[in-house]
């Protein structure tokens, strides 16, 4: 990848999406041309941007979007947490469960019946039961209920400026401070 530079202490950054919509990743890319500047300051590790599937042994900052709706999400989250020095919950789904958590008002059975049995136009109605499909959790959960979270970027999605502030602050070794308009949306 990149040639060795004069900065040996480059931070490594990983990103990952669980039960989310990738909107947070898209918002991150709204830093636009500053992504070039960022790429000179940090090394991207596991991320949909790099298509690297697992984290290196030690990652400095892990950004995670989406909540937990199935067993695989939990496993990925735990592995991700173990690799990252700082874990950042990005966006409403990671922080509160978000839109996927709307199903928490109903039983899992009624959700699956609605989707696979009772909906109009279904051939061979049955609830899928393939070991390849991760088991769904009874309730969708935010990530802080399962692992320790160090920072949060609120918003649906958080604005690009919030990502920029978080990363540049951590690179500079200071505490991130989000401006009011980058953390309040009402």
């Amino acid at each position, binding site marked *: 990848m990149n040639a060795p530079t004069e900065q040996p202490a480059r931070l490594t950054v990983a990103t990952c999406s669980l039960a989310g919509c990738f909107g947070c990743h898209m918002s991150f890319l709204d830093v636009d041309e500053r992504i070039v500047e960022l790429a000179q300051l940090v090394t991207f590790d596991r991320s949909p941007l790099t298509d690297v599937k697992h984290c290196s042994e030690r990652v400095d900052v892990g950004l995670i979007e989406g909540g937990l709706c199935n*067993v695989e999400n*939990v496993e990925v989250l735990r592995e991700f947490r*173990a690799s990252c020095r700082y874990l950042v919950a990005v966006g409403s789904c990671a922080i509160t469960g978000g839109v996927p958590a709307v199903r928490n008002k109903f039983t899992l*059975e009624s959700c699956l019946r609605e989707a696979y049995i009772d909906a109009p136009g279904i051939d061979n109605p049955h609830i899928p039961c393939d*070991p390849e499909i991760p088991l769904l959790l*009874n309730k969708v959960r935010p990530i802080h209920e399962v*692992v320790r979270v160090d920072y949060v970027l609120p918003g649906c999605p958080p604005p690009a400026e919030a990502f920029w502030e978080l990363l540049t602050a951590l690179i500079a070794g200071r505490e991130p401070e989000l401006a009011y308009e980058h953390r309040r949306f009402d």
Partner: protein
Amino acid sequence: MASPLGQSVTLHDIAARHLHARHRLLQMLREVQASRSYVPEEAIQFFAHVLNLPIAHVRGCVEFYSFLHTTPRGQFDVYFSDSVTDRMAGSEIVAKRLADRLGVTLGQPRADGRVTVSMTSCTGHCEQAPAGLANGRVFTRMTEARIEKMASLIEHGVPVSEWPAEWFHVDDGIRERGITLETFIPPGEAIRTALARGLPATLDEVERSGLQGRGGAGFPVGRKWRGAYETKGAHYITCNADEGEPGTFKDRVLLAKYADELFEGMTIAGLLVGAKKGYVYMRGEYEYMMEGLQTVLEERRAAGLLGENICESGLDFDLRIHLGAGAYVCGEQSALLESLEGKRGIPRVRPPSAVKIGLFGQSTINNNVESFVQAAQIAWKGAEWFSDHGETKSRGTKLLSIAGDCQRPGIYELPLGITVREVLARCGGENAKAVQVGGPAGTCVGRDEFDRRVSYADLATGGSIMVFNDLRDMVDVARQFAHFFAHESCGFCTPCRVGTQMLKHYADKIADGQGTQRDLEQVKSIGEFVKGYSHCGLGETAPNTLLDTIKRFPEEYTSRLLAEADFVPDFDLDASVTESRALTGRQDQLDQVHSD
């Protein structure tokens, strides 16, 4: 609550009896609940139609109040008081015993519709615990032997009215009388004295006495009355007899034995400001006193002390009693006014104060039962009779309801300014390690603070004093209070609605030995946030006991924290996939390695 009345009372009868008045919606719904064991959808639609209210308004009311239900309860509806002092007296054991005997799950009606057994917030009989309600009737001192009998009576369908009378005996519980409990006013005498002195001069007298609100907040009664007196337009007088603060049961005694004094005080306030109407907002749990209070009201009407031309003054004033339906927040003044207007008890934005814009948008004097009783006595006996007692900034005496680990629980009338130590000496609670002054919303003090004073300047209380000895687990006490507030939050503002749930969650986690130092820090920071940002007094005080006990009994917390871990999730992967396993029949082994 459920009764074997059946459906003989029609919805039309109920609406007609309450004159189709919207503000009596809650009273109508109570009657539907009592006769049908729930409020059916049909009743919701009916009242919305005849009262010309949105259906959502009526349904909102039904869902807001704990004693109203949208699904049938049992024919016998039994509640056990869930105050911490009731638990100390064994309420959980007797409740579980009854549920086991009858084969019911707590909170759920039995399949045959015979019975429901549930827990409810403090019913205000702490010194006679374990207490509870059976079809709305208060029972006290429940024992396991009585439970056996009760189970059999329920199985045989014997109406509650035919159950042993001694189960329903409520002692007045008075242990020590002071000036208030020793002063019985011959009906009408305080009104006549006030009229003879002149009503404005009587207001001066109340102001001079230094009487402060006995509900606990301590706002000067005279100043409140003066504010209403100087406000133009129509007025109302309301009395807060909601007494929902767990551990408080002193108004119960005043309502039972000093009703004349209470009504006298309200009448004087009414005559002073020119109010025509007053309401006593009494908690639903005290319904059993309704009949006695109605009798007193009738006697007073017959004697010309209520109604038109009271004591030949040319002034009119009358009173009604309004029953609550199980909502702690309705003890908050503005929530109480909302509830009196037939709405959900959601606290209003203040200012304006109730004195400016209160019941039905009019200037309102709202005081606690004890405040009105003492105001009537001051009108009769003069300011000095009262102000000679107590201390400079907290005049007079206060009724304290003491329960918990003491030899003589009950009601004590003591001068304000008395130290906690002296209170403990009176009630036989010298072995206390902690005293909760003012209920869950008040202050928890430890041994080194027993020289602090019960007064508005130091430890304010509406009357609740709970005593805990060395055997008590203060983390568990704080946890129970956290549950109480999470249950009673009205849900209007996010800091309280969400914050009280979070505090409950962390309190459980810590109490169960699953907490870490990080969780303890979370409790502190969430607690401060909820205190600072909530809409009303409920949220502002909800974290008090958790924060107090963390500060005063830190070792009880730290000793049960998981020392080695920084973060322990309250999450069990296997327990989180039970539904999908059941739906798919899959039994995959899950990777249970915790990577954090």
